[in-house]
């Protein structure tokens, strides 16, 4: 289905300096974006008629402790008009920050809260960034790789 291929090419043409890296696996394509351009690129992807990603399906992160910077934000977009998916990534330091997508999509609210809860990444501009799944007085970030599955 070549998910995202067309959008990745369009991104490279529109934001040549913001696209850090591109990749694909099993015909699913993604682009790694400079975190400073995160909000601008996402807004363009939503509003441009050629990309038209009207749905923010998911926001999450992957922790790579050996890499600098170690946190990779991963967002999945879907376009109803084009029936196409796109994966967008940005690499940020341990605690971020990265711009929140809440001004563009309501779904960013809970998904970014969960990413903060699990990884400790701060989304700047999020109106209500607090834990969502873990208890309020919990101090760790469970999906970070240094945290073992069992403690004790």
């Amino acid at each position, binding site marked *: 289905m070549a998910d995202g291929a067309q959008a990745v090419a369009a991104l490279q043409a529109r934001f040549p300096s913001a696209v850090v890296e591109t990749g694909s696996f*099993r015909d*699913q394509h993604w682009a790694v974006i400079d975190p400073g351009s995160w909000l601008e690129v996402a807004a363009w992807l939503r509003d441009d008629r050629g990309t038209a990603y009207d749905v923010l399906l*998911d926001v999450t992160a992957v922790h790579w402790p050996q890499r600098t910077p170690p946190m990779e934000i991963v967002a999945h977009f879907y376009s*109803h008009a084009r029936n196409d998916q796109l994966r967008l990534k940005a690499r940020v330091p341990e605690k971020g920050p990265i711009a929140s997508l809440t001004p563009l999509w309501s779904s960013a609210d*809970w998904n970014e809260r969960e990413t903060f809860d699990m990884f400790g990444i701060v989304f700047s501009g999020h109106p209500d960034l607090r834990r*969502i*799944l873990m208890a309020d007085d919990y101090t760790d970030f469970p999906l970070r790789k240094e945290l073992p599955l069992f403690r004790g």
Partner: protein
Amino acid sequence: MPARFETSVERPDVLTINMGPSHPATHGVLRVVLDLDGETVVGCDPVIGYLHRGMEKIAENRTYLQFIPYTDRMDYLSPLAANVGFALAVEELLGVRVPPRCEVLRVICCELARIGSHLVWLGTSALDLGAATMFFHTFKDREWHYDLVEDLTGARLTTSYTRVGGVAYDATADWLKRLREFVDAMPGRIDDYETLLTRNTIWLKRTQGVGRLSAQEAISYGVTGPVLRASGVAYDVRKARPYSGYEAYEFDVPTGTEGDVYDRYLVRMEEMRQSVRILDQALRNIPGGPVNIDDPKIFLPPKSKVLTSMEELIHQFMIVTEGFECPPGEVYVATEVPKGELGFYIVSEGGKSPYRCRIRSSAFNNLSSLKKQVIGALVADVVACIGSIDPVMGEVDR
């Protein structure tokens, strides 16, 4: 920040009340903190996480096969659908496709799960609004559905039916015959349910115009499944991005116009009819042949051979004790479960466990729209809205 329980100092007319986490109408351990001005809801904060078991973390520490039982415990009203979703994601990562008979069996699983899940939704959400009769009717038929699930998989809830590259057991001819009886009876049963509710004045008054979401709002909240379709968006993963051979089936995607609780009711009722239609086609066209791929590195050999042949014994031993390896790469694979789009985003670095396994939950995103639905509504409507979202906390919290 801990949630507040007292009247606000700035707004003395506003009373903050707590609903749940153990409340019969929250359908599991969902807590909702409501700010009320008289009977009108002026603030709503759903508090989730009471059923958080850290499945994404667990997945990083288990082999791919070992994670299948955990998918049972996500949406525990439709475990078969999540089983299929996870198996498809790992198969995409591996680049394998299961044989035709397996694909049809998986479609049967997904649609049985949809009917079972919608029956629980119908019974409980009607019960929440005082229509107690409904509950007894739907749970009787759901028991019939559970008998079928149990005979196919060996369990009612903890089905763990799929394997990477196949399913655990083939369906017998007798089971398919009994499924046919269920399929033939269900349209009449759905008609019966509808006579109780569709034109019932109390039901109409409690559901019409309540919890309204426009198409644009639903899309912005990442809402999928019946709730999105009730708002008029005809998005169904089975149609938009077919998997497991769904492109070969004829079925309609029902949509609503108002996006209210009543439209969600109508959409789910029609979805059950469409599921019956798909099951009917699956039963008519189910091919013979194997139900799993022939790859001893990925799929367990037949038990009879394990007991008599050295090579198969070794394969069995290796898969069970070590697991199989996936190539480095990453995939996002979505399926249409009864609640909406369930996606697995698996990052592999090679090796026997996922490096990261993100579960994109349909119920989590759908539930996030609750606040939008209830602000400005009456407190009694909150129950109707929660029921119409049909959240299952096992999948919301994961």
